[in-house]
């Protein structure tokens, strides 16, 4: 019974953690485009650093940091946390959409 009552908290935590991955990914790429002076890709033949994988790894790390915060929020008020996640889905989708299209 107790395990079952924790499942909704786990779901809310997982959704929050998963949403933080594309959000962090988009933030990192937007930062690179706006504030870093990147070399022209046409001038680089090859580099061992795969930026996309690095951004995903950082996003996963951020998800690990978000998870305990989301767990605490869901335990305090599950309904409000879920409402916030419902809004966050739209915000994160808009965020990575804008970054993907306008800050490639």
């Amino acid at each position: 019974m107790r395990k079952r009552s924790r499942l909704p908290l786990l779901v809310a935590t997982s959704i929050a953690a998963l949403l933080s991955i594309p959000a962090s990914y988009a933030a990192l790429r937007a930062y690179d485009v706006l504030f870093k002076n990147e070399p022209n890709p046409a001038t680089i033949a090859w580099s061992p650093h795969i930026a996309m994988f690095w951004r995903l790894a950082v996003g996963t790390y951020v998800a690990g940091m978000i998870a305990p915060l989301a767990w605490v929020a869901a335990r305090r008020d599950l309904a409000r946390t879920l409402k916030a996640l419902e809004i966050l889905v739209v915000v994160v989708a808009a965020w990575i959409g804008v970054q993907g299209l306008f800050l490639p």
Partner: protein
Amino acid sequence: MSLVLFLRVIERIHGHLGWLSVAALLHPALLLRNPRRRARLAVSLTTAFVVGTAFLGVSLYPEYRARIKHPLFLEVPRLGWMFERKEHLAVGAVAFAVVGCLAHLSVPIFAENETKHTVARVAHRSFVAAFLFAAVVAILGVAVASYKSF
């Protein structure tokens, strides 16, 4: 089979699966408008499809960087940047498909009707986002692949 031929075959499979994923994502994006609707099998298979397609794309990515990215940016930079856009939006498509699947499959574990509806709306919104991203990704992928391939 030479490595180039192997990469070409995987790339074609990836491209076709990508378009099938777009079609598959449209199903939950439309079906889950009604928060009471359950489509566990469709949602699970769709997400598995998207994740499988992404796995193929990720496994091809290092070779794309080594063999195609540089000449693509030299010859047609516009297409190079299109591919960059495709990468970013593909991350969104996969993430939202997984979020939508998790949310939809977990609806029954919520006790109150209001929270059930909220989670169902999270699932629907996620699949709509995943579908839109996947559609753009597929179009950009065709644009790039029709110019340069392995």
